[in-house]
Every structure is written in structure tokens, then in C-alpha cells.
């Protein structure tokens, strides 16, 4: 089936089988390999992208369902070489270890902050329930999102944990 969609502000067309998953269209046809395939069962969230502005798991969506949709992947977040505040937050607050879950985590975190510009730690943890980090690096992921939230509100981010004396 012939589909046309917008991916990272660029219009693309592709001829896909009905069973082609959105994540496979992105990775194998469009070569946007920043979106990862993790569990394949809809649990881990490594494949999270934005479809028409909301976070979805691209391994649990058919490419044909995305016909006409506006998709943003991790590759579409930075603009003119400047990292998105959430990307910067993961960098500054060591929000990743192996990095496998990171693209999905970041896409979920961006959607979370779009919906709630000043989330509590509890809201961040619940908002990221659909993303698993097998390094169990959740603590610094939450700090990274807090950093990004502060930046996006025009505030000074809280200092990193390692600079705060116990």
C-alpha cells in the first residue's frame, strides 16, 4: 500500500505491506535508526515516537495507520545542531548508561513536559511508566527531566546530585 506521511518535518512516501510496523518503516526504509526496537511486545517503550504530537509505541502501530500522520523521531528533536532541552538534560544529568532506552525515554519525556511544564518527581515517574531502563538508571533519568523542565520554563536547573552535599 502506498502511504504518505511527514517524518521530522519532511514529507515521505513509501510502499508498504499492511503488516509493516511503523518502527520498521522508520528504521529500515527511512534509515532513522535512532528509534530502537526493544521488547517487541509493547512493554519497553524504546520505540516511542510522536504521532501527531502524542507519544506512541511505534512497534505497536502499523505503518498504514500512520498514513497522513505527522511523525517526530529522536532525530527530529534537535534544531540547527542545538540539542532539545530534554536531550541536554540527559547529557548534563547523566540520564543514560547503555543508552538503549534513551531515544524512547526522551520522546516520552518531551511529551510529558509538553503536557505538564512543571511536573513533580512523582508525575515524572508515572509519566515514564511506559519506558523501561534495564540499566535501572531511573534516578538520573528523573533528574534529567527535571533539568529539562526547568530549562524549558526559563529557570535555573537544580544542581546535580553529585554537587549537593549529603
Amino acid at each position: 500500500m502506498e502511504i504518505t506521511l511527514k517524518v521530522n518535518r519532511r514529507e515521505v512516501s513509501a510502499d508498504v505491506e499492511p503488516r509493516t510496523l511503523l518502527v520498521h518503516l522508520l528504521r529500515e526504509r527511512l534509515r532513522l535508526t535512532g528509534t530502537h526496537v526493544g521488547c517487541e511486545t509493547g512493554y519497553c517503550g524504546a520505540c516511542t515516537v510522536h504521532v501527531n504530537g502524542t507519544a506512541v509505541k511505534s512497534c505497536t502501530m502499523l505503518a498504514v495507520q500512520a498514513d497522513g500522520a505527522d511523525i517526530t523521531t529522536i532525530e527530529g528533536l534537535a534544531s540547527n545542531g542545538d540539542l532539545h532541552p530534554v536531550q541536554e538534560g540527559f547529557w548534563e544529568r547523566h540520564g543514560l548508561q547503555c543508552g538503549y532506552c534513551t531515544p524512547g525515554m526522551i520522546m516520552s519525556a518531551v511529551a510529558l513536559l509538553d503536557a505538564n511544564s512543571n511536573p513533580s518527581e512523582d508525575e515524572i515517574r508515572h509519566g515514564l511508566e511506559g519506558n523501561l531502563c534495564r540499566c535501572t538508571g531511573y534516578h538520573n533519568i528523573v533528574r534529567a527531566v527535571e533539568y529539562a523542565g526547568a530549562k524549558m520554563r526559563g529557570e535555573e536547573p537544580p544542581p546535580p546530585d553529585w554537587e549537593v552535599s549529603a
Partner: protein
Amino acid sequence: MFPRQFDYVAPTSLDEALQALADNPNAKVMSGGMSLIPLMKLRLFSPQLVVDIGRIPGLDGISDDGDHIAVGALVRHAQTASDPLVAANAAALAQAAAWTGDAQVRNRGTTCGALAHADIAADQPAGALACGATMVARSASGSREIAAADFFVDTLTSALNDDEILVEVRLPKAGAGEGSAYDKLGRRGGHSDYAVAGAAAWVRKANGTVAEARVALTGVGSKPTLAPAVAAAIVGTDGSADAVVAAAEHALEGVTVLEDLYGSEEYKAHLAKVYARRALTSALDAV
């Protein structure tokens, strides 16, 4: 991991979708796909034709239809969870929707899809049962209404025929003295993920007495089910903490308890009583 080959249509009218189902006995309806696509990827289920109803206009709204609130076939969990009409009239369903899956699942999956899927561990079937919902099923040959109490037939089996689409769920308008609530133990603790077990409760109080009640359990047996003995035991009482504790002890009467990967029979039986009590307590508090 991807599904076996299948044909796909995305009709832009309900009539076209119903005709596709009528013409193809091995067709399956898809709305958000949050339950269907994982099953197809695991190849536990391989329909010949997927009828994607996601592009049919007019099915994605929640409306006040006089004596009931209508939730359309394409209303997503996130929408059910945050809608003021649902919150005011069917709080148990709103809470169940808010605790369904995770943020990404709630952005795609639909309330009607979750009901039609009839998963034993899903949240919203219990909410629909407790709130006394009515399902509206359409086929090419007509429309019928199915009471929630008659809708959940068995494991992953609803009363829908293969050629029918659940086009709407109707929630009775809340009147004076009514309240409802849902509570659960999620598989990952707290309220996250599918329910290990959970309960929804709806009550109507009049003159300081519980006049009517419905309690529904999820995750406990082979299907989401009413627990009629709990409701019978709370009716006629003042709804005090002691009355709730006594009523919840009846949670397993007429209910089949089955163990699964997430709990033994004994544990599920215990949780059924705990969550019947918690849901009833919250529903009475909400009056």
C-alpha cells in the same frame, strides 16, 4: 517480530466497515490496536482482514445524550480518563481508564476496544460493570444494546458477534446520592500495568441508607464479573466502615477464582476482598 500477512482496509464510513465485516468471516475490527497488534505479532491471532475503524469520522466523541453519556468507539483511554462528563457520571470508569496501560498505550488504545477485548486483567470492564453501562453493537443488519452484565462472556470473549462493532458505550447519568470508584493492584505494584486484581463499586444512598449497589471484580477469575453478594450485603446498611468490611467478605460468592502468573488462587481470593472493600469505601466517600 511482525504479524503474518493480512489484508487491510481503512473505511471512512461505518456502513463500509460493517459491510466489510459482513462479507469477510475472518475479519477483525481494529481501533487503537493496543491489544490486537501484540497478539498478531506473537501470531497468537492472525485475521485474514483487518478492518481499521480509526478513520471513520464521528466516533471519537464523548457526548451528553440526555439520560446517559455516550463514549464513542474511537475515544482513547487518555480522553476517557480526563473527560469531565465521564468523571462526573462514571468516576469508576474514568479512574480505570487513567490506570490503563501506560501513557503511550492510553494515547492510542480506546475504551470501547478495551471493553470489546474483554481481557480478564483489564481495568475498564470492571468500571463499566459497576457503572451499569450499556454497550451499543452495530452490524450491517442492525443495532442492539447489550447490558454490561451480559457483555463479558468468558476469557477474551465478549457478547459481540464477529460482524458487529462496539460503536458506543452508554453510561447512565449520575443522580443524587450516587458515587463510584475503582481501585487495583497493578502487576508492577501501585496502579501500574494490568491489574493483578481490582474492583469497581457504584452505590446510591438515600436517607442515610445504601439503597442500591454494584461491585465488579477484575483479574480474579475467567472474566470481569459482578460480585452480586457484596452488593446485596451492603444494601440496606448505613455504609459504615464495619458494614463495608462485612460486605466485602462476600466477594467470592458466585465468583470463580483462578490463579495466573501474577497470583495464586489464595492470593487472588484475598485481593478480591481487599479491593472490594477499598472500592466500596471510595465509592461511598464519593457520594
